[in-house]
């Protein structure tokens, strides 16, 4: 197990959440606005500290982990990065090496890790560009590359596909699917069809409580969707998989 939570509580965000996450696979967290998705992800990332109950990573309470040790194993991707200063793509990617840094200068290993991550995310060709000039899709891939240079066992992503067009959404989730073969990927999403299509497991939150947790086909049924999201969903099945349409 990687994360194990018991009666996890966070003020105004999360109530009595208990779950266990395996060491690999793609888990999506869905739910209406304000359901506690980002709060949960923040706790898993070690960024929301005074939680009550228990939330362990690798057998150790998250708040007891040293930040540096934790960052070598768990990487967090914020929803969006509003860059104010002219950092280049490569500089942004190399920031992921901070938990390994021992001094002021980057090592050859840092550079090769960055190179590898930029190859995986197909960002090598614009490594010298000012991050602020990138399109939404390019920026998202650079942020992913930066997280990958941490060489993490867990990737936590907050709505990674929100600002992307259809093609980039699909290619991002395909990449996350690839990555989840050897590590745990947890992504918050609003798109139930992406969750249905790509994830191994879906957790649905409602008012800070877990309303459903299991395989996408089991959890994302019309009854649960009507209760949690307040829309009528119809599940369609075909040769190319399952998808849903909704109406209010």
């Amino acid at each position: 197990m990687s994360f194990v939570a018991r009666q996890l509580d966070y003020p105004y965000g999360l109530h009595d959440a208990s779950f266990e996450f395996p060491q690999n696979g793609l888990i999506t967290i869905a739910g209406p606005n304000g359901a506690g998705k980002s709060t949960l992800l923040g706790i898993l990332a070690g960024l929301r500290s005074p939680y009550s109950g228990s939330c362990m990573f690798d057998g150790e309470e998250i708040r007891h982990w040293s930040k540096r040790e934790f960052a070598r194993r768990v990487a967090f991707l914020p929803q969006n990065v509003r860059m104010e200063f002219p950092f280049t793509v490569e500089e942004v990617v190399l920031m992921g090496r901070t938990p390994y840094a021992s001094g002021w200068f980057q090592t050859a290993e840092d550079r090769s890790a960055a190179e590898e991550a930029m190859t995986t995310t197909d960002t090598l060709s614009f490594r010298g560009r000012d991050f602020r000039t990138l399109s939404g899709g390019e920026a998202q891939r650079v942020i992913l590359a930066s997280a990958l240079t941490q060489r993490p066992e867990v990737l936590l992503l907050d709505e990674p596909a929100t600002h992307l067009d259809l093609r980039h959404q699909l290619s991002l989730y395909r990449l996350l699917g690839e990555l989840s073969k050897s590590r745990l990927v947890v992504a918050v999403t609003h798109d139930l069809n992406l969750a249905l299509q790509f994830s191994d497991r879906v957790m649905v939150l409602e008012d800070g409580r877990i309303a459903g947790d299991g395989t996408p086909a089991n959890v994302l049924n019309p009854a649960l969707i009507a209760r949690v999201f307040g829309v009528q969903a119809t599940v369609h099945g075909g040769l190319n998989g399952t998808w849903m349409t909704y109406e209010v």
Partner: protein
Amino acid sequence: MSRSVLLSTAVLVAVVIIAPLLGSSHIELGRAFAGVSPDHEIFFYARLPRVILALLGGAALSVTGVLFQCMLRDPLAEPYTLGVSSGASVGAVIAICLGWRATGVASLAGAALVLLMVLGMAVDGRRLSSFTLLLTGVTMNSMAFAVILFLHNLASFSQSFAISRWLMGGLEAVEYSTLAWLAVVVIGVSTLVMAYAPHWNLLAVGDDWAASRGVSTVRLTTMGYIAGSVLTGLVTSLTGPIGFVGLIVPHALRLKLGADHRALLPCAFLLGGAFLVVCDTLSRTVIAPTEIPVGVLTALCGGPFFLWLLKSRRRSLWL
């Protein structure tokens, strides 16, 4: 990176050698070093201490500018626009009125107090918009100015003269012993700040960004604000409020070097120093023998620059 630091060092050294030779009366370097009067006195007792003060002051203000901009993620932040310089001024004016010797400590306290109030505007821990930040700075400046006017009104004639002379932000020759401890503090604090340059890079992107990569953000930010208060407070107590150095120098450097604090901070230190030495030399020579206070000069150059910067990023100001 190392090339730009070397180049900045060369510029600073050149400026520091040339600046003391310029002024209302002509002197020669050879005669000054040979101990020939009056060149010796003018060089070593009138001009060199003032050049060193300008160097340390410019370096400190410019490093503080980089720090505040990084921590608040806003290129418009600097000691003067945030009202921190004014806070330091209030401290110093109180010290002058009460006849305290420790103007430095009083300035530091004033600077720290204003900074706490500005940061208090971000109670929920979120970043301040430029709009809130600048309005807070404007308010702080007005309040500080009101206090200063009131104290000025109460002050005796000689205190009043000392206050208004000091408020114009002028550099004057100070004793070498004062310069020595100023140098120790400014160089010490700046070195400490530079040691964390890779971490400042992450903080300049975002708090969560830095924290999720193993940076102790609370400790780093606390250190940054203390360093900023110390640098601004001490320098202001000796020079009066000098605005916009911390805005112009970092901005120009980012255009040339990019945002990497490992290059930015050392170059801001070196060229911030050089910049204020040049400004001070101009203020001594342009309409010699009359001097323009250097604070007036930097405000006259920096004000329009600030407006231009504001206009060019007006859209994001409202976010």
